[in-house]
């Protein structure tokens, strides 16, 4: 009974916020910028390569720009998720919601549902954009369903990470800084780790300092791989590129688990922090 009421409560809250997202200019502006930027940058370069070399050899030319675009859109939604709870707490509207039939679980579910509904808009936007761009450039994109499903799961992980940070903080600015700061750290960590690994693989002799850094990154990488939603993104896209169905399914499963754990922790954090300003 109470779960049905919770779902109802979450649905009503998500609907209100989704309507507000749809009627505001924010999502359209950001998505236009992302897709325009990615299309211009990536496809232009590929077309220039084709013009210069006559031919390029890429398995699925649309996949990388798709992940850039979806990744950036997911980060945008992650930022929105990161400020969603702290903003309401900061404004005091959270308290008013909780005077009524809303509890922490239904509230967190509502926030998550709203961001995922907004991602639905992103997906429609992305599919139209890539259809048009791929038709015009004739670069092509295969396994669209696989990309879409993976994108949903990966974005879900990023959004739930944003919600978790939002539940932990009381100020909007702190949430944004924390979300962007952590993601930047994860990105820098992963990039540095991959770079040093590739240097080693190429047989480049590293100085003792770099050897130390590489071993430090090697030893701590498993933590980042568990915590960072970006690493789930990376694993999924890699599996898809290699056509590894097992890894692909594992990536979906781990993203789903990540989402559930992050949302459960959000409910806990929310109960701990309370609803008051």
């Amino acid at each position, binding site marked *: 009974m*109470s779960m049905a*009421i*919770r779902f109802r*409560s979450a649905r*009503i*809250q998500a609907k*209100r916020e989704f309507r*507000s997202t749809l009627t505001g200019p924010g999502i359209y502006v950001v998505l236009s910028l992302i897709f325009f930027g990615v299309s211009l940058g990536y496809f232009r370069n590929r077309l220039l390569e084709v013009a210069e070399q006559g031919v390029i050899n890429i398995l699925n030319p649309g996949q990388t720009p798709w992940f850039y675009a979806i990744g950036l859109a997911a980060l945008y939604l992650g930022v929105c998720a990161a400020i969603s709870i702290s903003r309401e707490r900061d*404004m*005091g*509207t959270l*308290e*008013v*919601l*909780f*005077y*009524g*039939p*809303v*509890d922490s679980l239904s509230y967190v579910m509502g926030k998550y549902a709203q961001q995922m509904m907004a991602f639905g808009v992103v997906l429609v936007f992305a599919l139209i954009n890539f259809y048009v761009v791929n038709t015009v450039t004739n670069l092509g994109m295969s396994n669209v369903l696989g990309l879409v499903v993976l994108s949903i799961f990966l974005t879900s992980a990023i959004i739930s990470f944003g919600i978790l940070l939002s539940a932990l903080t009381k100020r909007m600015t702190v949430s944004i800084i924390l979300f962007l700061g952590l993601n930047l750290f994860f990105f820098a960590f992963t990039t540095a780790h991959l770079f040093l690994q590739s240097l080693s693989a190429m047989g480049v002799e590293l100085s003792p300092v770099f050897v130390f850094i590489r071993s430090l990154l090697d030893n701590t990488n498993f933590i980042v791989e568990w915590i960072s939603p970006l690493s789930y993104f990376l694993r999924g896209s890699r599996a898809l590129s290699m056509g590894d169905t097992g890894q692909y399914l594992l990536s979906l499963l781990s993203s789903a688990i990540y989402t559930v754990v992050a949302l459960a922790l959000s409910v806990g954090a929310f109960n701990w922090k*309370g*609803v*008051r300003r």
Partner: protein
Amino acid sequence: MIRTEGLTKRFDDLVAVDNLDLHVEKGEIYGFLGPNGAGKTTTIMMLLGLIKPTAGRIWLFGKDLSEDYFNIKRRIGVLSEFHYLYEDMTAEEYLRFFGELYGVEDIDNRIKEVLGLVNLYHRRKELLGGYSKGMKQKFSLARTLLHKPEILILDEPVSSLDPHGIKEVRDILLEENRKGTTMLISSHILSEIERTCHRVAIIHKGKLVAQDTMDGLRRKLTEETEMYVTVEGLTDAIVDALRELPFIRSLSVDGQTVTLRMDADKDYRGDLSRKIVDLGGVVLDMRRHEMSLEEAFVTITEKNINLLAKEGSAA
């Protein structure tokens, strides 16, 4: 309708609410008073399940909130001191959202009714961000009444209103109470509490120090009453006779009016009247100075009086 037993909240070393036993009856308007920082808001937040008590229990409609969280919350209306609204929504959109959340039937009519009550129906299409402070307060009351709550918890319901607004809100609340709504009102505007509440509770430094009707409070707080009696044909004999009465403590005369300070243990007006008439005087007017809630509040909180502790020791 609302009952707490041993309700306690500690924040580290600070005891914000200390062993509070409240009991609000069905259909009652209950004034919940206390100086700033006395623990009123903490108590209200605990009643609503927004702050977890350190100890003690709470029953709303005879049930613990955790037993039937959603249904209990649907039967309560809360108006807080601060009017936190989604300012990017119109009044109508906002009420529709809350109506849906509370499961209000025939929402269009209900919105019309509650906005009509607070005279804001004609502004229903405007963004809430454009409302004045007073309008926001009245609008928040409309939101509070939207789902026809059986219990209303009101924290400073008239603090931002002008005298017309205060009267408007008072009339609405009294009408709701006539329909059977139970109310717990916390306010610093003691004259309003005195006018509307059936019983008042005073909390001081986290402890409940008084809980009674206004008359009961006065009786407990005053040892003597001041009475003004205007007498036609006032003579020295009458004045002397009054002075001799055993319950009179002091007396002064100003023209036809006698000011008497007397014991407050009983109503002595009959004795006074009979004595004056027996000596040939005619009582034109007899007024008793009644202790206001403000006086009672100040007396209790400044002198650290705990009427409940006194009662306990007397028993």
